């Protein structure tokens, strides 16, 4: 394993020291491993809290700031944070207007956030709402499974719900916007390599030279199927077609993200974006906004994911609103 770390045990603590040093506009609670905005939540503003395992950076810590999250709880690598972290963060960020928990749909994340909310309900009068993101079309959605994973749409949701909160919408309205984004967003990913969890010390799975995994998530887990490596045009087709089969994106403006999983150079993401756009154009889908880069990653995994969000005037307006975070910034 080759990593720029001191040890697998200290990687999270060390990186939080780096985050605190690099970003004076953030405040890091090193004991509870929570990243906050330095300024407390404005009175009356709904607070947004998210969190998850480490290894997906910039998600979530990189999205704390004006126009997006109020705090992010960091778990161990690929392991959701714990309920006490969510409780502590909920107490700190609440300004009286309530807190929205943004949870990616993994059993661990869901249970830990659930327990955190239970503790908050027992200990405080804080109003907590929850949105569970489950946008990954690679996973069959069935009542007999843990359901779809939360992947790329999480980024768009945190941006858009963050803008709604910043505008002064109340908890019910912010939650409704968040749910709308989740219901209107779909993602699909591909890996050209696995990734190496520091504590595991070797890649989670092995991919031969001529192979790729279609339908991977963001934890280096194996995907739905292994297929021969193909050119960018064909890979784009394999990612976009299942998305379009799952939801009708015609007749509305869309927001499209081509997201790198960590080990893929930007130039390849732009090549993929070009191919995605060709397919969408042929399908008569209007792309109103684009995002190309590393936003929700899986450590050093090579590959990418495509997310398409069916938007409307309100979502576009919220998307365009100013945002000022380490990972996403415009208009401010």
């Amino acid at each position, binding site marked *: 394993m080759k990593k720029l770390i001191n040890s697998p045990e200290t990687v999270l603590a060390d990186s939080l020291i780096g985050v605190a040093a690099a970003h004076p506009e953030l405040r890091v609670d090193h004991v509870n491993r929570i990243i906050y905005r330095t300024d407390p939540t404005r009175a009356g503003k709904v607070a947004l809290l998210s969190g998850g395992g480490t290894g997906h950076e910039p998600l979530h810590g990189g999205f704390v700031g004006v126009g997006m999250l109020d705090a992010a709880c960091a778990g161990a690598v690929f392991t959701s*944070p714990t*309920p006490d972290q969510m409780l502590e963060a909920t107490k700190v960020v609440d300004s009286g207007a309530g807190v929205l928990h943004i949870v990616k749909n993994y*059993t661990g994340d869901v*249970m*830990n956030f659930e327990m955190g909310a239970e503790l908050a309900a027992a200990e405080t009068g804080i109003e907590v709402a929850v949105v569970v993101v489950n946008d990954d079309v690679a996973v*069959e959605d069935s009542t007999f*499974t843990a359901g779809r994973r939360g992947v790329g749409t999480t980024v768009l949701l945190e941006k858009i719900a963050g803008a709604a909160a910043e505008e002064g919408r109340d908890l019910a309205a912010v939650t409704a916007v968040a749910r709308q984004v989740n219901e209107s967003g779909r993602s699909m990913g591909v890996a050209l390599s696995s990734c190496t969890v520091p504590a595991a010390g070797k890649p989670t799975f092995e991919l031969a030279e001529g192979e790729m995994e279609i339908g991977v998530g963001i934890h280096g*887990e*194996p995907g739905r199927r292994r297929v021969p490596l193909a050119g960018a045009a064909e890979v784009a087709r394999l990612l976009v077609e299942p998305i379009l089969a799952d939801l009708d994106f015609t007749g509305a403006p869309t927001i499209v993200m081509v997201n790198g999983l960590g080990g893929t150079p930007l130039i390849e993401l732009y090549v993929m974006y070009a191919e995605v756009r060709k397919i969408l154009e042929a399908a008569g889908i209007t792309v109103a906004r684009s995002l190309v880069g590393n936003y929700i990653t899986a450590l050093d995994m090579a590959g990418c994911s495509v997310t398409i969000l069916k938007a409307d005037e309100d979502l576009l307006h919220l998307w365009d609103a100013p945002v000022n975070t380490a990972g996403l910034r415009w208009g401010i």
Partner: protein
Amino acid sequence: MTNDTISLDQLTGWLTRFRDLVTEQVSYLTELDSAIGDADHGSNMTRGMDAVLEKIQASPVVAVDELFKGVGMTLVTSVGGASGPLYGTFFLRIGTSAGPVSTLDAPGLAAALRAGLGGVVARGKAEAGDKTMFDVLAPALDAFDADLVVFSDISSAARAAYSAAQAGRDATAPLIARKGRASYLGERSIGHIDPGAASTSLLFQALAEILDKE
């Protein structure tokens, strides 16, 4: 020699032995989780059990409920992931069921473990055959109870539970996962032992070993 009770010391010994076993098997657990999960079950369990042992050594307890509530809370606050809430709730419920006693008799232990299982189900909604730790916990407790009826020996019951646990663990291999991360794999989860089932089997190995010592 037959044993009727398990003492606070033995219960602490159980947890210590479990810590040692997950530490010994850390790579194996992570390997299993690499195949159908995200390669962190080994480090999750060792991080949690190290924290548990640290806590036990730092603040000695006098009652069984105190012990297991502490263990449960420590796991809940130090592990995260799926195993943190599940193992955490398991031990929390054991504590609540056991109450402020300093030893547990065999039926008391059986009841406590079953309460723990109830906690796991309440949290995770797993059913038999979902390919989770449930598939070890449930048959192990059934075997514990059945053995107890026949032999009235807590050590013998624990050995029976461990046997059933191993069988339950191995029986997860052919299953299609329906809960947790492995469920994303669908049919590709077939042929792999569930990592949580494997760690839960170690929990019964630890119990059997500690009770055999006497």
